[in-house]
């Protein structure tokens, strides 16, 4: 951008940068705080941002190692943190896949097919989504309790139940993907159909590859949503072995003893898969995948 700019422009740029940096620091602060707490010896929530001494005791516990504290006591990891992490990742991956499958196909129907009640269905989806899941916790518990009587692997304290509950929250994803499909001209699929594709082949070979960036975004959002979700998982999962990291880390914070340091280490761990997935998915989230097919 080598546009000619006014003199006062430099001042504006500086002010804008100062504002942005201040804002960035504000948003980064809680994260830095958590990192600091996890590296601090002992379990204290308060203290300076940069710890005086660095100790990896919380990280050792989180990663499943024992450590010997100052008084020579051997402290064993209280909770299977890595196992919880694995539970979380497993649930999040399956949830994201199921969500993607359901929301792309529904979005296709809403974007391309003609059927009665389409407009109504779209609005209803949003309305239902507006009802906070927390308010329906009791209902969710009751439903899965009942389901468990017939299908044990979908009952209370199963990962299946959590995934099924999460897969219900796809309304916003349907809207997002439908919005993207709407921007792709119908002529693209018509061309495929003239070329001999079935509706499904046109969807699979033409529409989906063009929508790849948005599919990545939805997958990522669903994944993050599942990793950080607490209320539903907390009432559906009970045994320590079954917990997700989000639910499990809460165990560090029991009434008499807040293990802030251990909690912080676990919290950072739970952010790890999200970061990893984001780095991988970024490759496909580039824009402009669909450009050049039509005129212009």
């Amino acid at each position, binding site marked *: 951008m080598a546009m000619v700019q006014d003199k006062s422009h430099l001042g504006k740029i500086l002010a804008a940068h100062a504002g942005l940096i201040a804002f960035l620091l504000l948003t980064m602060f809680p994260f830095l705080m958590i990192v600091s707490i996890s590296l601090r010896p002992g379990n204290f929530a308060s203290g300076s941002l940069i710890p005086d001494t660095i100790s990896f005791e919380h990280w050792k516990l989180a990663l499943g190692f024992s450590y010997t504290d100052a008084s020579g006591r051997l402290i064993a990891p209280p909770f299977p943190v890595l196992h919880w992490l694995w539970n979380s990742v497993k649930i999040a991956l399956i949830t994201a896949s199921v969500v993607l499958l359901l929301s792309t196909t529904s979005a296709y129907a809403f974007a391309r097919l003609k059927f009665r009640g389409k407009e109504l269905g779209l609005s209803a989806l949003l309305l239902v989504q507006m009802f906070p899941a927390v308010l329906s916790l009791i209902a969710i518990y009751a439903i899965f309790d009942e389901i468990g009587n017939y299908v044990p692997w979908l009952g209370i304290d199963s990962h299946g139940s959590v995934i099924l509950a999460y897969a219900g929250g796809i309304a916003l994803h349907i809207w997002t993907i439908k919005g993207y499909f709407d921007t792709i001209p119908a*002529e693209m699929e*018509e*061309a495929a159909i003239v070329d*001999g594709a079935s509706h499904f082949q046109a969807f699979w*070979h033409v529409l989906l590859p063009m929508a*790849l960036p948005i599919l990545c975004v939805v997958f990522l959002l669903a994944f993050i949503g599942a990793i950080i979700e607490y209320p539903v998982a907390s009432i559906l999962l009970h045994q320590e072995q079954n917990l997700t990291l989000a639910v499990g880390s809460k165990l560090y914070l029991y009434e008499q003893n807040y293990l802030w340091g251990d909690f912080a280490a676990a919290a950072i761990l739970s952010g790890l898969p999200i970061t990893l997935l984001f780095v991988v998915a970024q490759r496909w989230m580039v824009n402009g995948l*669909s*450009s*050049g097919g039509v*005129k212009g």
Partner: protein
Amino acid sequence: MAAVSLKGICKDFGTVRTLHGIDLEIRDGEFIVFVGPSGCGKSTLLRSIAGLEEISEGELQIDLQRVNELPPVKRGISMVFQSYALYPHMSVFENLAFGLRLAHKSKAEYTPQVEQVARVLQIDHLLTRKPKELSGGQRQRVAIGRAIVQRPKVFLFDEPLSNLDASLRVQMRIEIAKLHRELATTMIYVTHDQVEAMTLADRIVVLRAGRIEQVGSPTELYHRPANRFVAGFMGSPSMNFLPGRIAQIDENGIVVALSGGARVSVQVAPGRALPGDEVCVGVRPEHLHLAAGDNELAGEAMAIEQLGDSTVLYLQSAAAAEPLAARLPPLLPLSHGDACTLSFAPHHAHLFDVTGKAFERMSPIPAATTGESYSL
């Protein structure tokens, strides 16, 4: 290669009828062009033939077989879209091969076929590129190539050149004409560019509001428009219309007293017309001359357009509410406000009755044309 036969084709969108019973016989190997004003149903008709729209009523036959219920590929058609609709995530080669791959052909089978088509269209050096790395003209070639590799019985084009600039359009037009000569396949082409229609078509179908107004060769439509709509639609600037009443009928045709006062004679067969009938005289701009003569129209120059090869004069005259357009020789020293007199020969004029139907003209279509009559 196939004939296409449309029998009473109707198309409804919900409760709105868009096509009102289209009857048309398209011969094997013919180049048919659909023209008509925007929204008249050209695309809808083409898409109905393609199988992208369901036909509400009537029968469509391709190659003597009823195809109403068949999907596009099974009809043996291939279509080129106005927006090209190339698959952006595939290379040119993959774009061309997509249909063949879907037909379960092996790579060894379709590669030579794709390469041959690419050579014909001179895009063989672009096969590895993605559509976004191509120019508009190149994209258009790929879109046409994608239709050709399918070896269809009928090609359908929906305004394929309308996104190209003027010079590229002329070039592609010539190539499409050449393609038609080489492939000798039936082609159905939608356009609203008259030059495209006149130059490419064996026969032109003029549509209005979902009905066929006239079918005929370009010359036929130009010289023998069946009605006022077709007469006004073909030609640019369009035909001038002068309202009036029949004053006299004799063996040389009809004398019309124009509402503006002048009397003009028109060489048409009177049919059942009677003196006093309301009529409308039609004269094409290219048949008006700046000279005294048989049928004179006086007026004042309103605007003069110098087009280089000709001058278009817009004359405000008493004969018509709209200014009359006249295509005159180039570089005429006319200026705004000049009083002018235009004239036209009786055998050049058209006459339409009150319903817009044309009177039969006495003069034959000029030689060197092979017009056949298909008026509906």
